[in-house]
């Protein structure tokens, strides 16, 4: 670990570069509620990163929560860093300015731990940029005791194998408790005088059972390219590493002091997570599978967080976050209670991620009392009844029509519908059904609204199979077929002049999905591909203006030459039951046999109900992880707030 010598702020050196870059404000920090601690007051120091541009990374709840949880601890310091855009990267290289934190502009390389949160695999090249700018060797095994421990978290860390070469460690699941546990291990090891150096610290983390250290596992391959086995290579290191689950969300009301940036970001609102986990059982949804079980924040806990957060930030909008917000057991009382509390204060409330359900329109109406009713978004995901049974999205066409009719009748002018293309067993017919659905939506909507100017937007992207889901064995649809299918859908929508103008069509082409698929279900052999893409200039792969499909394919061809595998082997190939998957040694709690049965059920178009209101179907998470469903109702109500001052 780097020594405890004081580090100087890099800001004076950075400052003269800032007039020469776009949006310099994103690099200066100074956000409301940011914390800067004296270097010497801490014995464990974390640098947290969201590997995307500041405008995307700053609002990330995971980073904000861990930032606050860590900084609340005496003797612990946490600062943040984000990806710098290529204009600043070039200037930093030219002037020898290393990757810096935005809080105190300290060099990232001076911290004990460098924690990187991956919501998506498309941040992998940005990890390499940050490591390189920080002066940290890209390959974990090249690092010395002078370098931070590089540790990954976030949903993509449930299969960190493609970036295993670049990581010292990874943690799975909720971060609140494990960051504190890791901090304690580091603190103790430093207090003892760092015995055994970096290797010993990693060993201590690995044997704790809660931290995955890739270098302590050997991967053997079969001649045909499949994995033979993944096995620990030293004593005490567990065969499988389990995810972490925080119980009782009311005990973790974070962020209490949400960061308020000066720069404009993608979410200009405060977020309150009203529950974690989802058991709806949509088979494509990695988030729903890996965050089980459902743990609700209580209605009063939500009310307190909204109140404290608004006072701490001055935000004018509050988003009630979760994977399916209307599923909170007391969402009606929450919505009404909050709407009553903030009536007349020009504070707006929003409920992202709502299911197709007429009740949700009522909810949205409650939340937008007196405000705008510009648009509502629903996600039927699949166009035909059949494909929705395959993906276990238990929504019928009549449900959808009823829901949107309610919306149009209550003053909404625009409804957005999200779909996926390339789902398992899908045919052109399933996707073309989306056009029929959209036309029915408009026709029913015109009738309900009593006017012709209502609109509906169909938004569709390619499906990418993800680890730890029933579709982890599925073949991804190749990008040519995806694009052709989307083209047919576009033509079907455009061809009917009665509706064409009322239906917007937005789609994402299939190529980025193939790269995402390669990185999602990749193994350690993909690391060299990522490194080559980065070396050739790959940055910000989540941004269409920076993403290059051709570069990825070229580097994959070169990197995998001589291996019995290629891009299509990783993406469009269906796996069988016996194949060892690269993430099988990482335990999301889901019983592999249950996942396989659910995959078979998908193929037979058999649906599975939500376990919150039907008997347990043995996905394996609760007994395996020692957790349980935590839902209300509590029966409590939100009381009116006593105004702190007249006005």
């Amino acid at each position: 670990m780097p020594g405890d010598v004081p580090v100087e702020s890099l800001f004076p050196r950075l400052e003269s570069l800032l007039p020469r870059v776009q949006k310099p404000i994103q690099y200066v920090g100074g956000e409301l509620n940011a914390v800067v601690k004296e270097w010497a007051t801490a014995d464990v120091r974390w640098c947290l990163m969201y590997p995307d541009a500041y405008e995307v990374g700053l609002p990330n709840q995971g980073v904000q929560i861990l930032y606050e949880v860590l900084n609340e601890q005496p003797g612990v310091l946490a600062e943040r860093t984000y990806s710098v855009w290529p204009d600043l990267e070039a200037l930093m290289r030219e002037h020898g300015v290393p990757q810096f934190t935005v809080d105190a502009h300290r060099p990232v390389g001076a911290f004990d731990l460098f924690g990187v949160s991956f919501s998506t695999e498309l941040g992998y090249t940005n990890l390499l940029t940050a490591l390189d700018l920080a002066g940290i060797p890209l390959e974990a095994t090249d690092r010395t005791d002078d370098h931070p421990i590089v540790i990954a978290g976030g949903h993509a860390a449930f299969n960190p194998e493609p970036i295993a070469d670049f990581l010292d460690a990874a943690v799975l699941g909720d971060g609140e408790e494990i960051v504190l546990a890791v901090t304690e291990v580091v603190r103790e090891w430093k207090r003892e005088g760092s015995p055994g150096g970096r290797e010993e610290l990693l060993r201590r983390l690995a044997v704790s059972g809660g931290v995955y250290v890739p270098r302590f596992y050997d991967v053997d391959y079969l001649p045909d390219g499949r994995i033979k086995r993944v096995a620990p290579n030293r004593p005490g290191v567990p065969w499988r590493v389990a995810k972490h689950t925080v119980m009782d969300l009311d005990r973790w009301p974070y962020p209490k002091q949400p960061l308020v940036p000066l720069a404009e970001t993608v979410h200009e609102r405060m977020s309150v997570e009203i529950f974690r986990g989802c058991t709806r059982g949509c088979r494509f949804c990695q988030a729903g599978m890996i965050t089980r079980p459902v743990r609700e924040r209580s209605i009063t806990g939500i009310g307190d967080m909204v109140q404290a957060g608004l006072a701490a930030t001055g935000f004018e909008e509050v988003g009630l976050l979760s994977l399916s917000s209307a599923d909170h057991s007391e969402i009606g009382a929450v919505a009404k209670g909050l709407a009553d509390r903030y009536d007349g204060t020009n504070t707006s409330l929003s409920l992202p991620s709502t299911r197709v359900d007429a009740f949700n329109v009522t909810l949205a109406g409650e939340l937008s009392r007196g405000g705008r009713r510009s648009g509502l978004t629903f996600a039927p995901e699949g166009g035909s009844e059949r494909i929705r049974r395959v993906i276990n999205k238990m929504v019928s066409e009549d449900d959808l029509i009823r829901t949107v009719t309610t919306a149009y009748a209550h003053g909404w002018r625009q409804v957005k519908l999200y779909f996926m293309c390339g789902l398992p067993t899908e045919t052109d017919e399933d996707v073309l059904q989306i056009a029929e659905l959209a036309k029915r939506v408009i026709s029913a909507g015109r009738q309900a609204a009593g006017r012709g100017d209502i609109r509906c937007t169909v938004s569709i992207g390619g499906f990418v199979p993800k680890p730890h889901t029933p579709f982890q064995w599925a073949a991804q649809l190749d990008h040519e077929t995806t694009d052709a299918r989307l083209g047919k859908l576009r033509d079907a929508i455009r061809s009917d002049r009665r509706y064409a103008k009322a239906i917007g069509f937005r789609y994402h082409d299939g190529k980025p999905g193939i790269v995402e698929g390669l990185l999602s279900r990749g193994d350690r052999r993909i690391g060299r591909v990522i490194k080559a893409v980065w070396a050739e200039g790959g940055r910000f792969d989540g941004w269409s203006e920076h993403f290059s499909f051709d570069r990825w394919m070229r580097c994959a061809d070169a990197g995998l030459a001589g291996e019995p595998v290629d891009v299509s082997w990783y993406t469009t190939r269906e796996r069988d039951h016996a194949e060892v998957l690269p993430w099988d040694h990482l335990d999301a709690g889901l019983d592999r046999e249950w996942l396989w049965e659910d995959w078979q059920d998908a193929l037979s178009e058999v649906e599975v109900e939500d376990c919150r209101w039907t008997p347990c179907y043995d996905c394996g998470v609760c007994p395996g992880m020692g957790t349980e469903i935590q839902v209300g109702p509590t029966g409590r109500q939100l009381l009116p707030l006593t105004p702190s001052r007249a006005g």
Partner: protein
Amino acid sequence: MGRRPDGPLQPPPVQRLRLRYAKRGRLRFTSHRDFQRALERALRRAQLPVAFSQGFSPHPRISYAGAAPTGVASEAEYVEIALTRRCDLEAVRTALDESLPAGLDVLEVVEADTPDLAARLQASVWLVRLPGVTAAAAATATSRFLAADAVEVERLTRQGRRRMDARAPVVRIDVLGDAEADGGSEEDGCAILRVVVRHVTPAVRPDDVLTGLRVVADLAPPSPPLVTRLAQGPLDEQAGTVADPLTADRQPTELPTGRLDRG
């Protein structure tokens, strides 16, 4: 639950305030839009009774006057806000200053007793530090610039290249001599210019004047200049000085209800 097309009824404004604020240190990199968001949030945090416009999507009644460019510090930025309840001026200043990040500092709050602040902001005084440029070099360039009838410069804007005369709006430039060692390295010096520029359309900004110095005398600072707006207000053409634009508001006139600037 019926739709309310007119939106909630907003209480009317009863007090109009003018604020002078500073943009200092690293927060000089805030753009005008960044500042607008920060101010609106600070007003909410400070729980000040800001008036909102009527209608379906009410917005706070705040009007901004000629903001300094991104990257330029300022000691003299002005904004007007309307409140629905009369408040103590110093209490407003303190509450708002505490709710804004350090570096965006509220310096003064006065009640708007006179119309049209924007029209009084006729010129600005800019302090330009040029690290790595000696006072002698700066003086030579300045006198050449001032001797010219016109100095055409080009600026890259989002709309493309724009050509303008950087000379005409410049009222005066004083070279204040080398700064202490807090600028560039000691041997190179750090010239400080005090530039008075009339507000014209399209705006001529301090960096346009610096481009002008490069055009006439090849003055090219090795590192980016540090610019601070010291003042903006009514211009005395003869003296080349800029007065305080809030003087009139600080000394209320006899007129009882002279709020002609009701927007």
